[in-house]
């Protein structure tokens, strides 16, 4: 990855390709926050950063990451900032402002959207954000283009002194393809600072810059709009937009994955009438000159793009003046593609076939029947917390602490607690994988629901750092029907919970906050966080203690527990809930233990056996408490009405043995109990 080797062909994941593009483009600073499907860009760069002499870091959130990026570009360096769709929302303040004056260093934003929401809270299309700000958007159709576009984006950014936005999607970022390497840029941008570089008061929107009769931010706005006009001209000449000739009056405009699926569909259909195709590599601004030439050739235009009808809506505006008689097919008025979910080859092929007047391929009826018959024996495989996950212990403690405290204050309230979730592995506490079909209630009554497993414990869940804020709002609005709780992980705590926690203390919100510290940003693939002790490039770093931060923010009552000790965990949460009720204060419980996966990986690498557990079938009374723990390794035999432990999955966390009321679960001999956080050192 870090060796020049132009012309070399290799299979790269889209994110690896983007990283290679940054390397070929001479990146000097690469910064991001982990977010699936974008994380591998920084991960890849962090492996070669030291050798190639650039800086790579995981920032604590995307806002900080982007501010760091802007700082680096302000002193002339080439910078890459990476994020997932939700993360792009975090950068908006600086993003919308920095275009007022721009930057000398090439600044490339790599934003990975997630149509079909495989790994995300939403299917948000971040192209709107970049268009709203007013910067050039590039959108790759293949891994090769992901590399090439990131590389060339540095040049484009420096040409117009504005950030360039590269929009990826899951099927680019998390797919792999053959990529031919290019030449690595040898020179590095000079790092310098001149407050009046090319523009007076360049880096200070309030500086007394006068332009076209305006001053300050408005003058900078005029400058930005002029740059945007230049970009609008420029996109007509870039090779990223091009026309493929057809032999009918049917036209197709395709961008990103839409173009890839279109090409696959045309290869499969092999139509006699070939549509005219306009491949768009710059969804904003659209190349209007090229568009005019294309529109002149066709009567109808189909638009294929991943996400929202972003190009399509721009096309409506464009055609209204230029060629009002031509019909557009896509995701709005003449709908041939769904506005939600990912495009996929099947959908695109069917839509293109119909558009070209062809019969789309179909599955014969008897095969369909056969499949329906076979599918009856299929079993689901729901996403669950990992075997031995310490969150299972925390959620168990929380579940029973809530029951106890709700009952204790029975006269005071209805005992209807609210548990606000957050983003991380523990969000699975809201997946409800065994949930029944729900009929919603129309009246406005607080209702208590029975929880039988950890996958039902979260009542709310939206975004990073959202839970601790929601909890305060519920309290401040006067909710007193039961305890109010928020949970978050350690990486999420640093990402977005610190200001919210200060706010809770300052505004006297009586809520209980539980931070589940597993020492990693685990869900996105174990990137280091401020609790890990290393940086992105494996340098030793300060290990932050959440208790210390919380204490400094004014939290008076703090408990630290090991979630593998279920009794103490439950007791600590009980105390915290009681304290919150009795003294009307913000309380904090830190449940700390390193992610079991990481610990088990290290032990396995060393060849050290793990003490697995088993259920003594004679002693088991079939109460299913251990099954309710929600560990994928703990099973229930319907025939014998006894619990069992799956030896393939068990990592010996001891949690099930602790919840067993009759001590029927034992360790097998010869193994080792999982050590404490970082314990083996």
């Amino acid at each position, binding site marked *: 990855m870090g060796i020049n080797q132009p012309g070399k062909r290799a299979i790269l994941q889209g994110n690896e390709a983007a990283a290679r593009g940054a390397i070929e483009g001479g990146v000097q600073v690469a910064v991001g926050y982990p977010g699936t499907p974008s994380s591998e860009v920084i991960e890849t760069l962090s492996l070669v950063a030291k050798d190639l002499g650039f800086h790579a870091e995981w920032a604590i959130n995307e806002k900080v990451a982007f501010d760091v990026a802007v700082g680096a570009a302000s002193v002339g360096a080439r910078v890459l900032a990476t994020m997932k769709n939700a993360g792009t929302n975090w950068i908006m303040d600086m993003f919308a402002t920095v275009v007022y004056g721009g930057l000398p260093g090439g600044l490339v934003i790599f934003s990975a959207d997630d149509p079909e929401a495989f790994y995300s809270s939403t299917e948000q299309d971040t192209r709107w954000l970049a268009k709203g700000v007013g910067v050039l958007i590039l959108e790759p159709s293949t891994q090769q283009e992901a590399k090439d576009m990131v590389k060339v984006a540095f040049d484009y950014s420096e040409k117009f002194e504005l950030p360039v936005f590269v929009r990826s999607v899951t099927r680019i970022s998390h797919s792999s393809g053959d990529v031919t390497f290019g030449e690595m840029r040898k020179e590095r941008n000079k790092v310098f600072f001149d407050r009046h570089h090319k523009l007076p008061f360049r880096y200070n929107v309030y500086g007394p810059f006068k332009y076209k009769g305006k001053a300050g931010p408005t003058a900078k706005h005029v400058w930005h709009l002029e740059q945007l006009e230049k970009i609008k001209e420029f996109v007509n000449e870039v090779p990223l937009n091009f026309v493929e000739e057809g032999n009918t009056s049917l036209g197709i405009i395709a961008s990103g994955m839409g173009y890839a699926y279109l090409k696959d569909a045309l290869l499969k259909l092999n139509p006699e009438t070939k549509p005219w195709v306009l491949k768009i590599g710059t969804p904003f601004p659209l190349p209007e000159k090229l568009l005019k030439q294309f529109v002149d050739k066709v009567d109808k235009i189909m638009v294929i793009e991943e996400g929202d009808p972003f190009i399509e809506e721009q096309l409506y505006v464009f055609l209204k003046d230029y060629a009002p008689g031509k019909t557009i097919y896509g995701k709005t008025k003449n709908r041939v593609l769904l506005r939600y979910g990912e495009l996929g080859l099947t959908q695109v092929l069917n839509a293109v076939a119909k558009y070209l007047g062809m019969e789309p391929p179909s599955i014969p009826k008897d*095969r369909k029947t056969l499949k329906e018959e076979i599918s009856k024996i299929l079993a*689901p495989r729901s996403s669950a917390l990992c*075997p031995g996950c310490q969150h299972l212990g925390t959620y168990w403690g929380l579940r029973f602490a809530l029951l106890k405290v709700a009952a204790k204050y029975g006269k005071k309230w209805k005992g209807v607690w609210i548990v606000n979730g957050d983003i991380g592995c523990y969000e699975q506490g809201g997946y409800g*994988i065994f949930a029944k079909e729900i009929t919603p209630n129309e009246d406005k009554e607080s209702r208590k629901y029975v929880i039988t497993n950890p996958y039902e414990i979260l009542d709310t869940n939206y975004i990073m750092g959202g839970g601790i804020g929601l909890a305060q709002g519920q309290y401040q609005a006067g909710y007193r029907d039961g305890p109010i709780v928020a949970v978050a992980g350690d990486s999420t705590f640093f990402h977005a919970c610190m200001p919210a926690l200060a706010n809770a203390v300052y505004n006297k919100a009586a809520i209980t906050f539980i931070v589940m510290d597993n020492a990693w940003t685990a869900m996105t693939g174990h990137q280091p966080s401020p609790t890990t002790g290393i940086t992105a490039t494996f340098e030793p770093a300060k290990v932050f203690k959440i208790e210390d931060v919380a204490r400094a923010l004014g939290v008076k009552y703090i408990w630290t527990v090991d979630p593998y000790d279920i009794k103490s965990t439950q007791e600590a949460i009980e105390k915290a809930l009681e304290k919150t009720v009795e003294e009307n204060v913000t309380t904090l419980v830190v449940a700390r233990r390193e992610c079991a996966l990481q610990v088990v990986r290290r032990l396995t690498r060393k060849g050290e056996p793990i003490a697995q557990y088993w259920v003594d079938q004679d002693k088991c009374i079939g109460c299913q408490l251990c099954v309710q723990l929600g560990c994928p390794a703990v099973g229930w035999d319907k025939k014998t009405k006894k619990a069992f432990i799956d030896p393939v999955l068990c990592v010996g966390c001891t949690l099930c043995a602790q919840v067993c009321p009759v001590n029927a679960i034992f360790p097998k001999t010869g193994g080792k109990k999982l050590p404490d956080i970082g314990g083996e050192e």
Partner: protein
Amino acid sequence: MVDNYYIMIAGVGGQGSVLLSRIIGDAALMKGLNVRIGETFGAAQRGGAVHSHVRIGKEVYGPLLMEDDADALLALEPLEGLRRGLAYLKPEGVVIINTRKVYPIDVNVGAAEYPPVDEIIEALKKLGEIVIAADFTEVAEEAGTARAMNIAVLGAYAKVIELVDSPFDKETLLEAMKGRVPSRWLEANLKAFQLGYRIAESALKEK
């Protein structure tokens, strides 16, 4: 040689399906073809369903297979093999399936039944053309490490493609495997590959 060739790899997290897809991709590169690999995995790091779409050809763009598109299904886990086979296997397609089960939480807690493995194999025989089923985990253990299970499956596949139109041969797959497997595990993986190849060989003779 075929112009386009599609493979579906099905398994659960931690079984090495990603490595397997990369090895096959490398083999296609050696043959001068283009490759796209699309991967989807669950939110959990361990035990979630993982599947890889592998598209190989002179001209390929996107990473996704269509329904009944797969020339080959490499199933590292039986239930996941059935799931992806139902969606993607061609009637002329070939299947290599590891019979070692990894129970989903739904089955472990009694919310669903794991289908009998012989029924899974029968179903795949109805859906496709050739099915080679074996406990490839055991085969890999015999070779030195259970983690070479994916390579044992690859070995069986290397035999099956001698009977059908495919872009590879045994040597290319072996070469690609050598390039991707850590050197300290190479010996066990080579053995797993050979054992897998022989299993397919004898299974095909029986037919």
